[in-house]
């Protein structure tokens, strides 16, 4: 075997960095001729900056980030692509124990139904406002994130104006549970294991989750600059093949314990394995006495499901427009469809035909 090609990849310590971690640790990258070097980062801003200046060839990115960078909506904006989905689902919305008590009294479903819990929250928000309280405060990890758009969509569907009726702030994921316990936040939307962290501590209650809000929607993507994708097409293709095999490995229930041990280790999440197990094993505790069995709570796939879809990109772009982050333009939409094009993944994996693009369906969409 010839010399391995080094690929530098940045990641944030979250469960859905699993595909990159497994690609390196289980040897899939090496089998594809790649020496994968993983660098843990402390903020999405660092991920963006280090990809932009070329320290990282690729990175674990929030799905909307390559769009925001390409449309010049952030600093150090350079044209990027999202050639592969690294994980579907995996997020949840957690509220403080005190807020959950009110929501439960107001009829919130205990099993995480987004319509029911949203309406209960709307009643709690109205009551809170009538009592002259300061607006409830919710945390997300980044303004251009699936978390921000899921939270906003869920709030708005229940008649809560995310910009007027509540306050939305940004915090690093690993600080969310502490901020909730300290009363600095009333709720948050974040990836695992940081919802489970609050439930395990008894300070938070999961009220709904990404798979219930928008089933099988992309959460993290592989982010690359267009420049790198064009200059290293073979390396990118080999990397995606390695990651597809890694994703299938992660999805196999027989490997869940092995994966849990890897991710909880000191080089990755550096947390208790018990925090990682619920989402990886598909049995998530919403509260002390309620759990939900969803094998697909956080879904990895090396098959067609990991191919990006222009419709997904378009949904994220629509949210940016809806919430005033971007101005709609036909050129912008065309660009977004390119960013989320399945072509690179399809060619790398030699998938002949991808399933027809499904229409986007969220929890409150009318039946087709």
């Amino acid at each position, binding site marked *: 075997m010839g010399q391995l090609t080094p690929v530098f990849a940045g990641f944030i310590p979250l469960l859905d960095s699993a595909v990159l971690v497994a690609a390196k640790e289980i040897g899939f990258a090496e089998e594809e001729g790649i020496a994968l070097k993983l660098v843990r980062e*402390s*903020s*999405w*801003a*660092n991920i963006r*900056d*280090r990809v932009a*200046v*070329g*320290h990282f060839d690729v990175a674990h990115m929030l799905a909307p980030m390559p769009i925001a960078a390409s449309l010049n909506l*952030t*600093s*150090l904006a350079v044209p990027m692509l999202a050639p592969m989905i690294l994980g579907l689902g995996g997020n949840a919305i957690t509220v403080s124990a005190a807020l959950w008590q009110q929501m439960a009294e107001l009829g919130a479903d205990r099993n995480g139904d987004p319509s029911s819990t949203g309406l209960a929250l709307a009643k709690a928000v109205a009551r809170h406002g009538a009592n002259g309280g300061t607006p409830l405060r919710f945390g997300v*990890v*980044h*303004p251009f994130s699936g978390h921000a758009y899921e939270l906003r969509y869920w709030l708005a569907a229940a008649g809560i104006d995310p910009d007027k009726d509540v306050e939305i*702030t*940004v*915090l*690093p994921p*690993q*600080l969310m549970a502490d901020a909730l316990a300290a009363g600095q936040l009333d709720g948050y939307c974040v990836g695992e294991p940081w919802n489970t962290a609050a439930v395990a501590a008894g300070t938070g209650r999961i009220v709904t989750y990404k798979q219930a809000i928008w089933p099988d929607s992309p959460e993290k993507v592989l982010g690359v600059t267009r420049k790198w994708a064009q200059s290293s097409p073979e390396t990118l293709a080999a990397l995606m093949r390695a990651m597809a095999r890694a994703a299938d490995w992660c999805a196999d229930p027989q490997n869940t314990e092995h994966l849990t041990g890897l991710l909880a280790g000191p080089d990755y999440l550096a947390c208790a394995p018990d925090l990682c197990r619920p989402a990886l094993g598909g049995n998530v505790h919403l509260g002390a006495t309620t759990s939900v069995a969803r094998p697909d709570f956080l879904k990895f796939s090396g098959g067609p499901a990991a191919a990006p879809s222009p419709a997904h990109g378009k949904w994220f772009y629509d949210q940016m427009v809806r919430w005033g982050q971007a101005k709609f333009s036909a050129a912008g939409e065309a660009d977004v469809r390119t960013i989320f094009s399945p072509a690179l993944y399809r060619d790398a994996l030699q998938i002949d035909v991808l399933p027809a693009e499904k229409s986007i369906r969220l929890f409150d969409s009318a039946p087709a």
Partner: protein
Amino acid sequence: MSSGISILVIDDNKIRASIIEEGLRDAGHDEVIVVHQMDGLLRQIADIDPDVIVIDLENPNRDQLEHMFQVSRAAQRPIAMFVDRADSHSIEAAVEAGVSAYVVDGLKRERVKPILDMAVSRFRAFSRLSKELEDARTELADRKTIDRAKGILMKSKGLSEQEAYDLLRRTAMNQSRKIIDVAQSLVIASGLLGD
């Protein structure tokens, strides 16, 4: 002479922060405020109302900071990351050194660039210093290990200090190893065998 630019330095590494503060003051900036604690940062920024914010890249609160600049009512003036498109090298150098700067809109680039350059050079100096310190610590630890190995040989073989050292060195040379590695093995072995 005052530059008239107020600069907020956010860095939870106190030594590095004070090195940067000193550099900025030497360069004639007397409105420099250093913050180590992230608690209540947003309110502090609103109170201080800085023209330039310098923050270390290890800080996990960068996303929060950027979000605040985007939407917030707390910051009275729009702030953006310092990006000089004509000079991508200085951005690369900053990221390389581990520092980022945010600048109030409208502040002239040529006034800000020396501040960023200063921060970059001080960050670099600090990492060099940290590495030297680390090296010095390792060297000290190595010397202690070699001393212990010598002591073990002197006791068990009845050698003088010089003879003990010569034996270590000869063994290392014969096995193409470093003296410290031989000394370490000896100390461990002797520990296992109960001295």
